[in-house]
């Protein structure tokens, strides 16, 4: 009888073991490279390329719409003085940010107040603008197109101007079945922006199995980045290294630009700005919402030192105690997020 009980227990354990063996999560086999989509010939599909950009039902992607959006993106005729295009502040060579400029110049040389963010993988962002107050690309584009300091266009003026250009009149008719309007302009630009995809950095290649893709320093930086010591990964999380959330990074004690509070009016939102993507971050200097930090190393140092005290500072920010060598390693890791094929992809550059 006793033996029989042991036998049953043994059988149960064996069964549980077999079940666990089959159900236990295990590493997925390496992703088989598939032919890249037409717009991204320069970027082989690896790891994060498996992600699909979300597309709203009311603005399906079509090649003709993306091409129209690309032409509009690079066209300064979309601005009041005919001098400022989307690409004036979102330059492909700087991962679609405004290389070197703390804030961008809009029409008639007017200065904005915030740093033009990179558009790398912008189609994945859940909130847009520095305070994250626009829910999707179609609506975001209305901002720069109509803002007094940026492109300064009235909807009617834009519709009239583009409608008078035969190539645009034809293209809008083909894509939207109608003459250009501010709305269709923003829809076409959004469609193009959803093709701004970058997933071929040394880090991506390392993730896909190329052990030599990253330097030793960058690998040490990677370890630090994802460790509690470096503590970068809580906010810079996921395939694009951003949680898309507004946070106060203790940049100032008193904020001239109050960030999210400008939209919500809440004291606790003062100084909160969205966590930016770190993809191609080495190309997008200067940094922070106002472009006040010139180099990547200085940004890492800002976090290493714990920033400036203020009531809304994110709880995660504290002095990190990183050595100079560790700061260098983190910078090397951040540099390994640079995708040269993104900035030179002919499908994303100005149309000929």
């Amino acid at each position, binding site marked *: 009888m006793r033996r029989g009980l042991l036998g049953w227990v043994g059988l149960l354990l064996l069964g549980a073991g077999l079940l666990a063996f089959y159900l236990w999560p295990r590493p997925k086999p390496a992703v088989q490279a598939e032919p890249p989509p037409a717009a991204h010939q320069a970027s082989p599909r690896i790891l994060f390329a498996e992600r699909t950009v979300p597309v709203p039902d009311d603005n399906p992607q079509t090649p003709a719409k993306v091409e129209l959006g690309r032409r509009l993106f690079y066209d300064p005729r979309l601005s009041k003085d005919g001098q400022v295009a989307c690409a004036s502040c979102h330059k492909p060579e700087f991962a679609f940010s405004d290389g070197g400029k703390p804030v961008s110049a809009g029409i008639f040389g007017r200065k904005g107040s915030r740093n033009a963010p990179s558009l790398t993988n912008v189609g994945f962002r859940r909130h847009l603008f520095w305070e994250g*107050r626009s829910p999707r690309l179609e*609506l975001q584009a*209305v901002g720069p197109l109509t803002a*007094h300091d940026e492109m300064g266009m009235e*909807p009617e003026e834009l*519709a009239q101007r583009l409608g008078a250009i035969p190539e645009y009149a034809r293209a809008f008719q083909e894509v939207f079945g109608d003459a250009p309007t501010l709305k269709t302009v923003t829809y076409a630009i959004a469609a193009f922006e959803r093709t701004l995809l970058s997933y071929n950095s040394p880090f991506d290649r390392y993730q896909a199995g190329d052990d030599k893709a990253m330097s030793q320093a960058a690998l040490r930086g990677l370890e630090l980045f994802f460790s509690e010591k470096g503590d970068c990964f809580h906010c810079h999380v996921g395939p694009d290294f951003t949680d898309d959330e507004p946070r106060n990074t203790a940049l100032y004690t008193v904020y001239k630009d109050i960030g999210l*509070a400008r*939209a*919500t009016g809440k004291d606790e939102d003062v100084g909160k700005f969205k966590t930016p993507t770190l993809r191609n971050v080495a190309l997008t200097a200067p940094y922070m919402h106002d472009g006040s930090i010139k180099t990547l190393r200085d940004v890492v140092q800002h976090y290493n030192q714990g920033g400036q005290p203020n009531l809304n500072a994110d709880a995660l920010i504290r002095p990190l105690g990183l050595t100079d060598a560790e700061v260098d390693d983190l910078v090397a890791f951040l540099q390994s997020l640079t995708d040269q094929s993104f900035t030179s992809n002919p499908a994303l550059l100005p149309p000929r």
Partner: protein
Amino acid sequence: MKGWLTLLPLFLAGALAAPVELKINLRIGDQPLRFGQTYQTPQGQRYQIEMLKFYLSEVALVRPDGREVRIDGLVLADFRRDGPTQGVSVMKMDVPAGQYRGIRFNVGVPRELNHLDAGTQQMPLGVNSGMYWAWNPGYIFYRLEGLALLPEGNQKWVIHMGTDAFRIPVRLQDLQTRRVQINIPPAGGAITLNLDVARAFQPGPGGAYVDWRQQSLRQLHGLSPETSLLMSVVYYHMQSAFSLAQ
């Protein structure tokens, strides 16, 4: 029975809807506003008006007993440099003929419409209205723009009032006395309002006013920290900027 029949036409006349137009006269003080004409604020700053656009919604006519005839719909009143400023029809409605003790409405977009996806809305909402605030889902309710004639040269200024907190309630009604009388004959007619645009430049508590010599005050936007106090001043005065035309 005969008495009923004689009353019937009167009853029908009262119950049938009469077409009514809501018209607006733009004023600067008690004078008709003219685009491009130079005016002066109480503080002596010279200015011109270039554009005025605002949403008008939640309109209701107030019956003598206080009950309301509510009018559905939302309109965008749009005044431009090359357009008229007096007796401009901004809304058409059908209401029962009769006597009313007033009209009320809001300048702005009802909250339930203000935060829908602007990409899916049709005019007068939607992004083509020129009233959509991309950085903060919602609309500009009251958009006034012009030039300040400053010693150093002309400078453009804008007042863009929006966000739910700044929807402007206008209440032109009087149930206690007979001062407000709106008569809608069976054939219909018009209700004409005066809007004193210059109210925006009246000083607020402590004498605060929109001083265009300060660059930061040339763009009053929603809840911007430098300008929220002055936006509140403008908002306060806007609540009494409308009146019934005599």
